[in-house]
Protein backbone atom coordinates (compact mmCIF):
# COMPACT_ATOMS: atom_id res chain seq x y z
CA UNK A 1 0.00 0.00 0.00
CA UNK A 2 2.53 2.60 1.18
CA UNK A 3 6.19 1.95 0.78
CA UNK A 4 9.08 4.25 1.71
CA UNK A 5 12.56 3.22 0.71
CA UNK A 6 15.54 5.35 1.70
CA UNK A 7 13.49 8.51 1.50
CA UNK A 8 15.00 11.90 2.36
CA UNK A 9 13.07 15.15 2.54
CA UNK A 10 14.57 18.60 2.46
CA UNK A 11 13.11 22.00 1.65
CA UNK A 12 15.11 23.93 -0.92
CA UNK A 13 16.58 26.33 1.62
CA UNK A 14 17.41 24.57 4.81
CA UNK A 15 18.71 21.47 6.54
CA UNK A 16 17.33 18.01 5.74
CA UNK A 17 14.09 17.32 7.62
CA UNK A 18 13.94 13.55 7.14
CA UNK A 19 16.63 11.13 5.99
CA UNK A 20 16.89 7.45 5.24
CA UNK A 21 13.25 6.73 5.95
CA UNK A 22 12.28 3.14 5.11
CA UNK A 23 9.03 1.47 6.14
CA UNK A 24 5.90 -0.19 4.81
CA UNK A 25 2.31 0.47 5.83
CA UNK A 26 -0.03 -2.44 5.16
CA UNK A 27 -3.38 -1.74 3.52
CA UNK A 28 -6.03 -1.15 6.17
CA UNK A 29 -3.56 -0.34 8.91
CA UNK A 30 -3.90 2.45 11.49
CA UNK A 31 -0.89 4.51 12.57
CA UNK A 32 -0.23 7.50 14.76
CA UNK A 33 2.54 9.79 13.58
CA UNK A 34 4.22 11.35 16.59
CA UNK A 35 7.18 13.63 17.25
CA UNK A 36 8.04 17.00 18.71
CA UNK A 37 6.89 20.26 17.19
CA UNK A 38 8.96 20.83 14.07
CA UNK A 39 10.05 17.20 13.86
CA UNK A 40 8.60 16.73 10.36
CA UNK A 41 5.15 15.20 10.85
CA UNK A 42 3.38 17.56 8.47
CA UNK A 43 6.21 17.25 5.96
CA UNK A 44 5.86 13.49 6.08
CA UNK A 45 2.12 13.74 5.36
CA UNK A 46 2.82 16.24 2.57
CA UNK A 47 4.93 13.63 0.83
CA UNK A 48 2.07 11.16 1.20
CA UNK A 49 -0.56 13.43 -0.36
CA UNK A 50 1.75 14.30 -3.26
CA UNK A 51 2.27 17.86 -2.05
CA UNK A 52 6.04 17.48 -1.77
CA UNK A 53 8.51 15.40 -3.77
CA UNK A 54 11.13 13.58 -1.69
CA UNK A 55 14.72 14.66 -2.33
CA UNK A 56 15.93 11.09 -2.45
CA UNK A 57 14.55 7.56 -2.27
CA UNK A 58 11.41 5.87 -3.51
CA UNK A 59 7.84 6.45 -2.37
CA UNK A 60 5.25 4.04 -3.66
CA UNK A 61 1.50 4.63 -3.23
CA UNK A 62 -1.21 2.15 -4.27
CA UNK A 63 1.50 0.21 -6.04
CA UNK A 64 2.72 3.14 -8.12
CA UNK A 65 6.10 4.82 -7.87
CA UNK A 66 5.26 8.44 -7.12
CA UNK A 67 8.26 9.78 -9.01
CA UNK A 68 6.98 8.24 -12.24
CA UNK A 69 3.59 9.99 -12.09
CA UNK A 70 2.99 12.74 -14.60
CA UNK A 71 0.85 15.79 -13.96
CA UNK A 72 -2.24 14.39 -15.66
CA UNK A 73 -2.25 11.21 -13.56
CA UNK A 74 -2.16 12.92 -10.20
CA UNK A 75 -5.80 14.02 -9.85
CA UNK A 76 -7.06 10.43 -10.05
CA UNK A 77 -4.61 9.31 -7.38
CA UNK A 78 -5.37 12.27 -5.16
CA UNK A 79 -9.06 11.46 -5.23
CA UNK A 80 -8.24 8.27 -3.33
CA UNK A 81 -6.56 10.22 -0.52
CA UNK A 82 -8.41 12.20 2.13
CA UNK A 83 -6.48 14.87 4.01
CA UNK A 84 -7.22 16.78 7.21
CA UNK A 85 -4.85 19.72 7.08
CA UNK A 86 -3.35 21.11 10.26
CA UNK A 87 -4.69 24.54 9.26
CA UNK A 88 -8.01 23.15 7.94
CA UNK A 89 -7.85 24.88 4.51
CA UNK A 90 -11.57 25.22 4.14
CA UNK A 91 -12.90 27.14 1.18
CA UNK A 92 -14.08 30.35 2.75
CA UNK A 93 -16.88 31.30 0.43
CA UNK A 94 -18.47 27.85 0.28
CA UNK A 95 -20.90 26.77 2.96
CA UNK A 96 -20.12 23.95 5.34
CA UNK A 97 -22.25 21.69 3.19
CA UNK A 98 -20.52 22.66 -0.06
CA UNK A 99 -17.07 22.30 1.45
CA UNK A 100 -17.80 18.75 2.50
CA UNK A 101 -19.57 18.00 -0.79
CA UNK A 102 -16.63 19.18 -2.89
CA UNK A 103 -14.73 15.86 -3.19
CA UNK A 104 -17.93 14.14 -4.27
CA UNK A 105 -18.71 16.84 -6.80
CA UNK A 106 -15.24 16.67 -8.28
CA UNK A 107 -15.64 12.90 -8.52
CA UNK A 108 -19.00 13.36 -10.27
CA UNK A 109 -21.37 11.84 -7.71
CA UNK A 110 -25.11 12.58 -8.16
CA UNK A 111 -26.53 15.52 -6.17
CA UNK A 112 -29.20 13.46 -4.43
CA UNK A 113 -26.61 11.07 -3.06
CA UNK A 114 -24.35 13.97 -2.11
CA UNK A 115 -27.14 15.61 -0.14
CA UNK A 116 -27.91 12.46 1.81
CA UNK A 117 -24.37 11.54 2.77
CA UNK A 118 -23.09 15.02 3.50
CA UNK A 119 -26.03 15.85 5.75
CA UNK A 120 -25.68 12.57 7.61
CA UNK A 121 -21.94 12.99 8.18
CA UNK A 122 -22.23 16.62 9.29
CA UNK A 123 -24.93 15.68 11.78
CA UNK A 124 -22.64 13.08 13.18
CA UNK A 125 -19.81 15.52 13.84
CA UNK A 126 -22.28 17.91 15.51
CA UNK A 127 -22.70 20.48 12.78
CA UNK A 128 -26.32 19.81 11.85
CA UNK A 129 -27.21 23.42 12.65
CA UNK A 130 -24.35 24.87 10.61
CA UNK A 131 -24.92 23.37 7.15
CA UNK A 132 -25.22 26.79 5.53
CA UNK A 133 -22.62 28.59 7.63
CA UNK A 134 -19.47 29.87 5.93
CA UNK A 135 -16.18 28.72 7.50
CA UNK A 136 -15.15 32.17 8.80
CA UNK A 137 -18.34 32.20 10.87
CA UNK A 138 -17.53 28.89 12.51
CA UNK A 139 -15.59 28.43 15.70
CA UNK A 140 -12.13 26.87 15.54
CA UNK A 141 -13.36 23.47 16.63
CA UNK A 142 -16.26 23.56 14.21
CA UNK A 143 -13.91 24.32 11.34
CA UNK A 144 -11.74 21.40 12.32
CA UNK A 145 -14.73 19.09 12.18
CA UNK A 146 -15.75 20.36 8.74
CA UNK A 147 -12.22 19.71 7.56
CA UNK A 148 -12.42 16.14 8.89
CA UNK A 149 -15.81 15.56 7.28
CA UNK A 150 -14.44 16.73 3.92
CA UNK A 151 -11.49 14.35 4.22
CA UNK A 152 -13.61 11.27 4.94
CA UNK A 153 -16.77 11.92 2.89
CA UNK A 154 -15.52 10.13 -0.24
CA UNK A 155 -14.36 7.09 1.75
CA UNK A 156 -10.73 7.45 0.68
CA UNK A 157 -8.37 4.50 0.44
CA UNK A 158 -5.90 6.51 2.49
CA UNK A 159 -6.76 9.02 5.21
CA UNK A 160 -4.12 11.47 6.43
CA UNK A 161 -5.06 13.64 9.41
CA UNK A 162 -2.76 16.32 10.81
CA UNK A 163 -3.46 17.19 14.45
CA UNK A 164 -7.19 16.59 13.94
CA UNK A 165 -8.14 17.12 17.57
CA UNK A 166 -6.08 20.22 18.40
CA UNK A 167 -9.08 22.54 18.55
CA UNK A 168 -11.77 20.39 20.10
CA UNK A 169 -12.46 19.25 23.62
CA UNK A 170 -11.93 15.67 24.74
CA UNK A 171 -15.52 14.55 24.19
CA UNK A 172 -15.55 15.61 20.57
CA UNK A 173 -11.99 14.31 20.16
CA UNK A 174 -13.09 10.82 21.08
CA UNK A 175 -16.05 11.00 18.78
CA UNK A 176 -13.77 11.92 15.89
CA UNK A 177 -11.39 9.08 16.71
CA UNK A 178 -14.34 6.73 16.55
CA UNK A 179 -15.10 8.01 13.05
CA UNK A 180 -11.52 7.31 11.97
CA UNK A 181 -11.65 3.79 13.40
CA UNK A 182 -14.93 3.05 11.68
CA UNK A 183 -13.45 4.17 8.38
CA UNK A 184 -10.40 2.04 9.08
CA UNK A 185 -12.58 -0.98 9.72
CA UNK A 186 -14.11 -0.48 6.26
CA UNK A 187 -10.65 -0.73 4.69
CA UNK A 188 -9.14 2.74 4.75
CA UNK A 189 -5.50 3.05 5.70
CA UNK A 190 -5.24 5.77 8.37
CA UNK A 191 -2.30 7.91 9.45
CA UNK A 192 -2.89 10.50 12.19
CA UNK A 193 -0.26 13.02 13.20
CA UNK A 194 -0.78 14.27 16.72
CA UNK A 195 0.75 15.78 19.86
CA UNK A 196 -2.08 14.53 21.99
CA UNK A 197 -0.38 11.99 24.23
CA UNK A 198 -3.62 11.17 25.98
CA UNK A 199 -5.13 10.11 22.69
CA UNK A 200 -2.09 8.13 21.60
CA UNK A 201 -1.88 6.17 24.81
CA UNK A 202 -5.62 5.55 24.88
CA UNK A 203 -5.70 3.91 21.46
CA UNK A 204 -2.88 1.44 21.20
CA UNK A 205 -2.29 1.67 17.49
CA UNK A 206 1.09 1.38 15.88
CA UNK A 207 3.16 4.56 16.01
CA UNK A 208 5.47 6.13 13.49
CA UNK A 209 7.88 8.08 15.68
CA UNK A 210 9.96 10.84 14.15
CA UNK A 211 13.12 11.57 16.07
CA UNK A 212 16.14 13.42 14.75
CA UNK A 213 14.95 13.12 11.19
CA UNK A 214 14.47 9.39 11.06
CA UNK A 215 11.34 7.32 11.55
CA UNK A 216 10.91 4.31 13.77
CA UNK A 217 7.81 2.11 13.83
CA UNK A 218 6.67 1.34 17.35
CA UNK A 219 4.01 -1.21 18.17
CA UNK A 220 2.51 -0.93 21.68
CA UNK A 221 0.19 -3.88 21.25
CA UNK A 222 2.39 -6.71 22.49
CA UNK A 223 2.41 -4.87 25.82
CA UNK A 224 -1.22 -3.76 26.21
CA UNK A 225 -4.40 -5.54 25.30
CA UNK A 226 -6.05 -4.13 22.18
CA UNK A 227 -9.09 -2.27 23.46
CA UNK A 228 -12.38 -2.41 21.63
CA UNK A 229 -13.08 1.11 20.43
CA UNK A 230 -16.77 0.84 21.21
CA UNK A 231 -15.96 -0.11 24.73
CA UNK A 232 -13.53 2.75 25.19
CA UNK A 233 -15.62 5.56 23.79
CA UNK A 234 -19.24 4.61 23.72
CA UNK A 235 -20.69 5.01 20.26
CA UNK A 236 -23.53 7.54 20.23
CA UNK A 237 -26.76 5.68 20.70
CA UNK A 238 -28.78 7.90 18.38
CA UNK A 239 -27.05 7.01 15.13
CA UNK A 240 -25.66 3.67 16.10
CA UNK A 241 -22.25 4.52 14.61
CA UNK A 242 -20.64 6.97 12.25
CA UNK A 243 -21.91 7.19 8.67
CA UNK A 244 -19.82 5.44 6.09
CA UNK A 245 -20.13 7.72 3.09
CA UNK A 246 -21.54 7.14 -0.40
CA UNK A 247 -21.83 3.58 -1.63
CA UNK A 248 -20.16 4.27 -4.95
CA UNK A 249 -16.61 4.96 -3.98
CA UNK A 250 -15.28 7.68 -6.29
CA UNK A 251 -11.72 6.41 -6.02
CA UNK A 252 -12.86 3.07 -7.43
CA UNK A 253 -13.68 4.70 -10.77
CA UNK A 254 -10.05 4.51 -11.84
Amino acid at each position, binding site marked *: MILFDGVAVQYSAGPPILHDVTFTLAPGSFHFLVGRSGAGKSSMLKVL*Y*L*GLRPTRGTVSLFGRDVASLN*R*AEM*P*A*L*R*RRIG*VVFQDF*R*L*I*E*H*LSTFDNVA*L*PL*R*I*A*GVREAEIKKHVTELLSWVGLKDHLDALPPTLSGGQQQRVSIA*RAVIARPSLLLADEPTGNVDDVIGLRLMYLFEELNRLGTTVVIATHNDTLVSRFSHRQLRIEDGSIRVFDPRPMTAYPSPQGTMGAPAATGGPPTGPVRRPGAAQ
Partner: protein
Amino acid sequence: MFGHSDLPLNRDASARFLPWIIGFMTYLCVIAVAAGLTVDRVAERWRQGLAGNLTVELPFPAELETEKRAEQLDQAMELVADTPGVTGATVLEDHQIAALLEPWLGPDAGQLDVPLPTMIAVTRRTDAVIDLAGLKTKLRQIVPDAEVDDHGDWVADALGFLRSLQALAGALSALALGAAALTVIFVTRTGLATHRGVIEVVHLIGAPDRYIARQFQAQALKLGILGGVVGLGFGAATVLGIGRLIAFSLDAANPGLAFDFRLLPWQWVVLGALPLVVALLAMFTARRTVLRSLAKML
Protein backbone atom coordinates in the same frame (compact mmCIF):
# COMPACT_ATOMS: atom_id res chain seq x y z
CA MET B 1 -21.92 19.95 -11.69
CA PHE B 2 -20.25 22.45 -13.97
CA GLY B 3 -22.81 25.08 -13.10
CA HIS B 4 -21.20 24.88 -9.69
CA SER B 5 -18.27 27.23 -9.15
CA ASP B 6 -15.73 26.75 -6.37
CA LEU B 7 -13.96 30.04 -7.00
CA PRO B 8 -15.84 33.22 -6.10
CA LEU B 9 -14.58 34.93 -9.26
CA ASN B 10 -17.75 36.90 -9.79
CA ARG B 11 -17.26 38.52 -6.40
CA ASP B 12 -13.75 39.72 -7.21
CA ALA B 13 -13.29 43.42 -7.84
CA SER B 14 -12.25 42.40 -11.34
CA ALA B 15 -15.78 41.31 -12.16
CA ARG B 16 -16.83 44.92 -12.01
CA PHE B 17 -13.62 46.32 -13.45
CA LEU B 18 -12.88 44.08 -16.41
CA PRO B 19 -16.04 44.90 -18.42
CA TRP B 20 -15.16 48.59 -18.28
CA ILE B 21 -11.63 48.12 -19.47
CA ILE B 22 -12.71 45.65 -22.13
CA GLY B 23 -15.51 48.04 -23.03
CA PHE B 24 -13.09 50.91 -23.38
CA MET B 25 -10.71 48.85 -25.50
CA THR B 26 -13.58 47.65 -27.69
CA TYR B 27 -14.67 51.26 -27.99
CA LEU B 28 -11.24 52.30 -29.22
CA CYS B 29 -11.15 49.32 -31.52
CA VAL B 30 -14.56 50.17 -33.00
CA ILE B 31 -13.55 53.77 -33.59
CA ALA B 32 -10.21 52.83 -35.09
CA VAL B 33 -11.68 50.14 -37.35
CA ALA B 34 -14.50 52.48 -38.40
CA ALA B 35 -11.96 55.17 -39.19
CA GLY B 36 -9.92 52.68 -41.18
CA LEU B 37 -12.97 51.55 -43.13
CA THR B 38 -14.07 55.13 -43.82
CA VAL B 39 -10.61 56.08 -45.01
CA ASP B 40 -10.79 53.03 -47.24
CA ARG B 41 -13.98 54.32 -48.85
CA VAL B 42 -12.55 57.81 -49.24
CA ALA B 43 -9.37 56.46 -50.75
CA GLU B 44 -11.35 54.28 -53.12
CA ARG B 45 -13.35 57.25 -54.27
CA TRP B 46 -10.32 59.38 -54.74
CA ARG B 47 -8.62 56.71 -56.75
CA GLN B 48 -11.67 56.24 -58.97
CA GLY B 49 -12.63 59.92 -59.05
CA LEU B 50 -9.25 61.44 -59.61
CA ALA B 51 -6.67 58.85 -60.50
CA GLY B 52 -9.18 57.33 -62.87
CA ASN B 53 -9.77 60.64 -64.55
CA LEU B 54 -7.80 62.99 -66.74
CA THR B 55 -8.41 66.66 -67.30
CA VAL B 56 -7.66 68.25 -70.61
CA GLU B 57 -7.36 72.03 -70.64
CA LEU B 58 -7.81 73.88 -73.89
CA PRO B 59 -6.93 77.54 -73.38
CA PHE B 60 -8.23 78.99 -76.64
CA PRO B 61 -6.72 82.35 -77.46
CA ALA B 62 -9.26 85.08 -76.60
CA GLU B 63 -9.28 86.37 -80.17
CA LEU B 64 -10.38 83.01 -81.68
CA GLU B 65 -13.86 83.09 -83.28
CA THR B 66 -16.56 80.94 -81.77
CA GLU B 67 -16.91 78.80 -84.87
CA LYS B 68 -13.24 77.95 -85.08
CA ARG B 69 -13.27 77.29 -81.38
CA ALA B 70 -16.12 74.76 -81.66
CA GLU B 71 -14.37 73.04 -84.51
CA GLN B 72 -11.10 72.68 -82.61
CA LEU B 73 -13.01 71.43 -79.56
CA ASP B 74 -14.73 68.78 -81.67
CA GLN B 75 -11.38 67.65 -83.04
CA ALA B 76 -9.91 67.47 -79.57
CA MET B 77 -12.92 65.52 -78.26
CA GLU B 78 -12.61 63.03 -81.08
CA LEU B 79 -8.91 62.62 -80.46
CA VAL B 80 -9.46 62.04 -76.78
CA ALA B 81 -12.36 59.64 -77.30
CA ASP B 82 -10.29 57.56 -79.72
CA THR B 83 -7.37 57.22 -77.36
CA PRO B 84 -7.08 53.57 -76.18
CA GLY B 85 -8.31 53.14 -72.59
CA VAL B 86 -10.58 56.16 -72.51
CA THR B 87 -14.18 55.36 -71.66
CA GLY B 88 -15.76 58.81 -71.86
CA ALA B 89 -15.13 62.52 -72.23
CA THR B 90 -17.30 65.48 -71.30
CA VAL B 91 -16.79 69.15 -71.88
CA LEU B 92 -17.15 70.90 -68.54
CA GLU B 93 -19.67 73.70 -68.65
CA ASP B 94 -18.52 77.07 -67.41
CA HIS B 95 -20.68 76.79 -64.29
CA GLN B 96 -19.05 73.46 -63.37
CA ILE B 97 -15.64 75.08 -63.54
CA ALA B 98 -17.00 77.99 -61.56
CA ALA B 99 -18.18 75.57 -58.87
CA LEU B 100 -14.66 74.18 -58.63
CA LEU B 101 -13.31 77.68 -58.27
CA GLU B 102 -15.97 78.90 -55.89
CA PRO B 103 -14.07 78.32 -52.67
CA TRP B 104 -11.39 80.58 -54.05
CA LEU B 105 -13.30 83.19 -55.95
CA GLY B 106 -16.54 83.39 -54.01
CA PRO B 107 -20.09 82.42 -54.91
CA ASP B 108 -20.24 84.78 -57.82
CA ALA B 109 -17.38 83.11 -59.69
CA GLY B 110 -19.84 81.99 -62.35
CA GLN B 111 -21.04 85.46 -63.07
CA LEU B 112 -17.57 86.90 -63.31
CA ASP B 113 -16.81 88.27 -66.67
CA VAL B 114 -13.71 86.14 -66.83
CA PRO B 115 -12.97 83.82 -69.70
CA LEU B 116 -12.21 80.43 -68.26
CA PRO B 117 -10.23 77.76 -70.09
CA THR B 118 -12.35 75.12 -71.74
CA MET B 119 -11.87 71.83 -69.93
CA ILE B 120 -12.61 68.24 -70.86
CA ALA B 121 -13.13 65.70 -68.09
CA VAL B 122 -11.93 62.31 -69.32
CA THR B 123 -12.85 59.03 -67.66
CA ARG B 124 -10.80 55.93 -68.35
CA ARG B 125 -10.57 52.31 -67.31
CA THR B 126 -8.76 52.13 -64.00
CA ASP B 127 -6.29 49.57 -65.25
CA ALA B 128 -5.54 51.32 -68.54
CA VAL B 129 -2.19 53.01 -69.05
CA ILE B 130 -2.62 56.05 -71.26
CA ASP B 131 0.22 57.61 -73.18
CA LEU B 132 -0.13 61.10 -71.73
CA ALA B 133 2.84 62.61 -73.56
CA GLY B 134 1.59 61.32 -76.91
CA LEU B 135 -1.91 62.62 -76.26
CA LYS B 136 -0.53 66.01 -75.29
CA THR B 137 1.60 66.23 -78.44
CA LYS B 138 -1.38 65.39 -80.61
CA LEU B 139 -3.64 67.88 -78.77
CA ARG B 140 -1.09 70.66 -79.19
CA GLN B 141 -1.36 70.19 -82.90
CA ILE B 142 -4.97 71.34 -82.51
CA VAL B 143 -4.74 73.87 -79.63
CA PRO B 144 -1.17 75.04 -79.11
CA ASP B 145 -1.29 75.53 -75.33
CA ALA B 146 -3.31 72.38 -74.54
CA GLU B 147 -2.49 70.63 -71.25
CA VAL B 148 -3.19 67.10 -70.01
CA ASP B 149 -3.27 66.53 -66.28
CA ASP B 150 -3.83 63.15 -64.57
CA HIS B 151 -3.40 64.59 -61.03
CA GLY B 152 -1.06 61.64 -60.55
CA ASP B 153 1.45 63.04 -58.10
CA TRP B 154 -1.15 64.68 -55.99
CA VAL B 155 -3.30 61.55 -55.82
CA ALA B 156 -0.33 59.35 -55.01
CA ASP B 157 0.63 61.65 -52.17
CA ALA B 158 -2.89 61.88 -50.89
CA LEU B 159 -3.36 58.11 -51.05
CA GLY B 160 -0.08 57.66 -49.24
CA PHE B 161 -1.35 59.90 -46.53
CA LEU B 162 -4.61 57.99 -46.28
CA ARG B 163 -2.71 54.70 -46.10
CA SER B 164 -0.65 56.10 -43.20
CA LEU B 165 -3.87 57.02 -41.46
CA GLN B 166 -5.13 53.50 -42.01
CA ALA B 167 -1.94 51.98 -40.68
CA LEU B 168 -2.35 54.19 -37.64
CA ALA B 169 -5.92 52.99 -37.17
CA GLY B 170 -4.73 49.40 -37.52
CA ALA B 171 -1.97 49.96 -34.99
CA LEU B 172 -4.44 51.52 -32.58
CA SER B 173 -6.81 48.55 -32.92
CA ALA B 174 -3.97 46.14 -32.32
CA LEU B 175 -2.85 48.18 -29.35
CA ALA B 176 -6.36 48.18 -27.91
CA LEU B 177 -6.74 44.42 -28.38
CA GLY B 178 -3.30 43.93 -26.88
CA ALA B 179 -4.21 46.06 -23.90
CA ALA B 180 -7.43 44.06 -23.48
CA ALA B 181 -5.52 40.77 -23.57
CA LEU B 182 -2.96 42.17 -21.16
CA THR B 183 -5.73 43.19 -18.80
CA VAL B 184 -7.27 39.73 -18.97
CA ILE B 185 -3.89 38.18 -18.22
CA PHE B 186 -3.47 40.48 -15.29
CA VAL B 187 -6.96 39.91 -13.96
CA THR B 188 -6.55 36.16 -14.34
CA ARG B 189 -3.19 36.16 -12.59
CA THR B 190 -4.63 38.29 -9.82
CA GLY B 191 -7.50 35.85 -9.58
CA LEU B 192 -5.10 32.93 -9.38
CA ALA B 193 -3.11 34.70 -6.68
CA THR B 194 -6.19 35.79 -4.74
CA HIS B 195 -7.65 32.31 -4.81
CA ARG B 196 -4.39 30.46 -4.60
CA GLY B 197 -5.37 28.79 -1.36
CA VAL B 198 -8.66 27.54 -2.76
CA ILE B 199 -7.01 26.36 -5.94
CA GLU B 200 -4.39 24.43 -4.00
CA VAL B 201 -7.05 22.72 -1.93
CA VAL B 202 -9.23 21.90 -4.93
CA HIS B 203 -6.13 20.44 -6.57
CA LEU B 204 -5.21 18.34 -3.58
CA ILE B 205 -8.76 17.04 -3.46
CA GLY B 206 -8.22 15.75 -6.97
CA ALA B 207 -9.50 18.34 -9.45
CA PRO B 208 -7.59 18.46 -12.75
CA ASP B 209 -6.27 21.72 -14.23
CA ARG B 210 -9.08 22.08 -16.71
CA TYR B 211 -11.61 22.03 -13.87
CA ILE B 212 -10.08 25.28 -12.63
CA ALA B 213 -9.39 26.74 -16.08
CA ARG B 214 -13.04 26.22 -16.98
CA GLN B 215 -14.19 28.54 -14.22
CA PHE B 216 -11.79 31.28 -15.23
CA GLN B 217 -12.55 31.06 -18.93
CA ALA B 218 -16.31 31.10 -18.38
CA GLN B 219 -15.93 34.22 -16.28
CA ALA B 220 -13.67 35.90 -18.86
CA LEU B 221 -16.07 35.08 -21.68
CA LYS B 222 -19.00 36.49 -19.74
CA LEU B 223 -17.21 39.69 -18.80
CA GLY B 224 -15.74 39.97 -22.29
CA ILE B 225 -19.13 39.83 -23.95
CA LEU B 226 -20.53 42.32 -21.47
CA GLY B 227 -17.68 44.76 -21.98
CA GLY B 228 -17.60 44.21 -25.73
CA VAL B 229 -21.29 44.96 -26.16
CA VAL B 230 -21.03 48.08 -24.02
CA GLY B 231 -17.98 49.22 -25.99
CA LEU B 232 -19.70 48.53 -29.30
CA GLY B 233 -22.75 50.50 -28.21
CA PHE B 234 -20.77 53.59 -27.30
CA GLY B 235 -18.47 53.11 -30.26
CA ALA B 236 -21.30 52.87 -32.79
CA ALA B 237 -22.94 55.95 -31.30
CA THR B 238 -19.67 57.86 -31.57
CA VAL B 239 -19.05 56.71 -35.14
CA LEU B 240 -22.56 57.75 -36.19
CA GLY B 241 -22.19 61.05 -34.33
CA ILE B 242 -18.81 61.92 -35.82
CA GLY B 243 -20.01 60.92 -39.30
CA ARG B 244 -23.01 63.20 -38.96
CA LEU B 245 -20.83 65.99 -37.59
CA ILE B 246 -18.26 65.79 -40.38
CA ALA B 247 -20.90 65.48 -43.06
CA PHE B 248 -22.69 68.50 -41.62
CA SER B 249 -19.55 70.62 -41.30
CA LEU B 250 -18.20 69.76 -44.75
CA ASP B 251 -21.56 70.19 -46.30
CA ALA B 252 -21.99 73.62 -44.76
CA ALA B 253 -18.50 74.59 -45.81
CA ASN B 254 -18.33 73.16 -49.35
CA PRO B 255 -21.74 72.06 -50.51
CA GLY B 256 -20.29 70.71 -53.71
CA LEU B 257 -17.48 68.65 -52.24
CA ALA B 258 -19.16 66.91 -49.31
CA PHE B 259 -18.17 63.27 -48.96
CA ASP B 260 -20.47 60.51 -47.85
CA PHE B 261 -18.96 59.24 -44.63
CA ARG B 262 -21.57 56.65 -43.82
CA LEU B 263 -20.36 53.07 -43.48
CA LEU B 264 -21.62 50.33 -45.75
CA PRO B 265 -23.71 47.46 -44.31
CA TRP B 266 -20.86 44.95 -44.51
CA GLN B 267 -18.65 47.40 -42.68
CA TRP B 268 -21.20 47.55 -39.85
CA VAL B 269 -21.11 43.76 -39.72
CA VAL B 270 -17.35 43.94 -39.25
CA LEU B 271 -17.83 46.36 -36.37
CA GLY B 272 -20.58 44.21 -34.89
CA ALA B 273 -18.24 41.22 -34.83
CA LEU B 274 -15.66 43.07 -32.73
CA PRO B 275 -17.23 42.31 -29.31
CA LEU B 276 -17.24 38.65 -30.20
CA VAL B 277 -13.59 38.81 -31.19
CA VAL B 278 -12.78 40.60 -27.96
CA ALA B 279 -14.78 38.15 -25.83
CA LEU B 280 -13.16 35.12 -27.44
CA LEU B 281 -9.77 36.74 -27.07
CA ALA B 282 -10.54 37.25 -23.37
CA MET B 283 -11.65 33.65 -22.97
CA PHE B 284 -8.65 32.05 -24.61
CA THR B 285 -6.26 34.41 -22.92
CA ALA B 286 -7.75 33.47 -19.56
CA ARG B 287 -7.60 29.75 -20.31
CA ARG B 288 -4.02 29.90 -21.49
CA THR B 289 -2.97 32.00 -18.53
CA VAL B 290 -4.54 29.59 -16.05
CA LEU B 291 -3.11 26.45 -17.60
CA ARG B 292 0.35 27.94 -17.87
CA SER B 293 0.29 29.36 -14.36
CA LEU B 294 -1.01 26.14 -12.83
CA ALA B 295 1.72 24.08 -14.44
CA LYS B 296 4.24 26.38 -12.81
CA MET B 297 2.44 26.90 -9.52
CA LEU B 298 1.49 23.47 -8.22
